[in-house]
């Protein structure tokens, strides 16, 4: 189910009411478990079966003693990754060897929803489970299952540290108007990003990308398609995260943030500390660190080479995680080379002088936008065609840009950059919190409600009830 769907909008107040009426920890957790399974299985029960099967493996692991766990951990990781590889990559792997796999008889095994996320979530939490146990917090199977399947982060993250999220299920949540209000603000913000920025852009530029895949894009249309996607992907994914975090917060749960002004990053290193933060942290801990340490220990005098190669390989794997296609591998390779190039030249994370920072932002974002062409175009000839068109060498003069797209792009860009400017500093409190000084809660709530109603009405008008195609979030496909 998508957070921006009408069904979710009507169901969530009911869920919130039932949650607070449930009163006790046991009943609240039971309700969350049922809602989460329903959320996952909304578009197909097979989504639930696969997730539950992997949870079964995790729960079996948790029954082991610490010595057995150390021996079993690599095997559990192998099972989880093989499961992911089977559902997501079998055709890609077979195709690389020139083999076409038949579909399994009687079954249509689409990629299970959320599999990329909960596979990583389970691996990370099984690795870290001893942290929680050493805090004297026992791991209960039902609560662990709920921690993984918790619907605000299940399908597309954020990937949470078990030590941060699991203990939050150990206490009943009492109603708090401050949490409800700040959660609602965050949800409305995310909803507006999705419904007012991401979806309208998608409707306008998807036909342009289809034309691009056939190789007939004019230069202005190429710029519109590429800038549109740049804005769309941020609004879509950060909007999803805001909605998930908002719903969680309304119930008294804290989920980590996933974005911190990535389009104001002045270096590749800065960018990846601001974009999809929880996935970057996962990759650093579980892919880069082991590879880099192992190679650095072996290659004492040339350890920089080992570390840079580990970094590139990590980014290639992250690229591949996004999807079973070479364009994602290429995207990862480009990002890896950018990061490696930066680290080879300087030890700084970013540029701090103002003119340098501005130049850095311009260059970093410019290169990012170009690498998004590789990400979005469906074939290499299409990507090359778009890049040529961006540079002004277009075979086609005639692709029409939808009327009003220029204005839409400008307004969307202004909104996206304004929101990110507010988000920029780590120490700055989120706007939602600033609005929630106790005396301002009623006013802030009123403003949020009004904005939400306007956005909801806009969505109904514009999609005429056929909005389902755009309710899916881009990252549901990864």
């Amino acid at each position, binding site marked *: 189910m998508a957070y921006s769907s009408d069904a979710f909008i009507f169901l969530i107040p009911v869920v919130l009411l039932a949650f607070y009426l449930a009163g006790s920890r046991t009943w609240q957790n039971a309700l969350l478990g049922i809602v989460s399974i329903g959320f996952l299985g909304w578009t197909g029960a097979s989504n639930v079966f696969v997730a539950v099967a992997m949870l079964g493996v995790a729960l079996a692991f948790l029954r082991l003693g610490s010595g057995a766990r150390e021996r079993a951990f690599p095997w559990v990781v192998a099972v989880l990754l093989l499961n992911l590889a089977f559902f997501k990559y079998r055709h890609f792997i077979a195709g690389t060897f020139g083999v076409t796999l038949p579909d399994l008889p009687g079954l249509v095994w689409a990629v299970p929803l959320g599999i990329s996320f909960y596979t990583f979530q389970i691996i990370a939490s099984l690795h870290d489970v001893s942290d929680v146990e050493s805090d004297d917090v026992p791991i209960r199977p039902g609560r662990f299952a709920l921690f993984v399947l918790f619907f605000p982060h299940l399908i597309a993250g954020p990937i949470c540290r078990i030590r941060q999220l699991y203990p939050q299920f150990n206490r009943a949540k009492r109603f708090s108007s401050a949490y409800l209000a700040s959660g609602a603000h965050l949800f409305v913000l995310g909803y507006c990003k999705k419904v007012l920025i991401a979806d309208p852009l998608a409707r306008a530029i998807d036909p342009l990308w289809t034309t691009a895949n056939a190789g007939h894009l004019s230069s202005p249309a190429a710029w519109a398609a590429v800038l549109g996607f740049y804005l769309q992907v941020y609004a879509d994914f950060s909007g999803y995260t805001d909605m998930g975090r908002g719903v969680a917060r309304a119930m008294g749960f804290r989920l980590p943030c996933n974005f911190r002004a990535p389009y104001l990053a002045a270096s590749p290193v800065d960018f990846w500390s601001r974009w999809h933060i929880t996935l970057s942290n996962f990759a650093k801990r579980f892919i880069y660190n082991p590879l880099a340490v192992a190679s650095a220990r072996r290659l004492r005098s040339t*350890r920089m080479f080992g570390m840079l190669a580990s970094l590139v390989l990590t980014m290639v794997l992250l690229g591949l995680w996004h999807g079973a296609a070479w364009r994602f591998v290429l995207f990862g390779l480009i990002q890896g080379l950018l990061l490696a190039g930066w680290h080879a030249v300087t030890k700084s994370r970013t540029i701090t002088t103002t003119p340098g920072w501005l130049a850095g932002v311009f260059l970093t974002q410019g290169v990012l936008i170009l690498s998004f062409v590789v990400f979005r175009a469906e074939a290499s000839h299409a990507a090359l065609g778009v890049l040529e068109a961006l540079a002004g060498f277009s075979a086609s003069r005639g692709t029409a840009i939808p009327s009003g797209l220029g204005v839409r792009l400008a307004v969307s860009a202004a909104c996206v950059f304004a929101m990110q400017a507010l988000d920029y500093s780590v120490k700055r409190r989120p706007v939602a919190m600033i609005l929630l000084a106790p005396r301002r809660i009623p006013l802030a709530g009123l403003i949020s409600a009004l904005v939400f109603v306007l956005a909801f009405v806009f969505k109904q008008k514009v999609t005429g009830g056929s909005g389902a195609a755009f309710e899916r979030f881009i990252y549901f496909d990864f």
Partner: protein
Amino acid sequence: MSIDRLRAVFREVFEDPQLEISPSTTALDVPAWDSFNHINLVIAIETEFNVRFKTKEIADMANVGDLVTLLRKKGTDVSW
């Protein structure tokens, strides 16, 4: 004082001869201390103090205070 050895490692790895460390120093306080250079720091400390860190320990060092505690657990005589 053995904190001097640790401080010297930090200064060399992050190329800052004026760098000072305290128990609450974190990566956010040192401009060059990102996850890439963290590996340089880890290897330099392993070499200087003849210890070996596990992957979990490498990732979970929240601040220099934690690092010193960990080094003491591994039998070194680092102290503030």
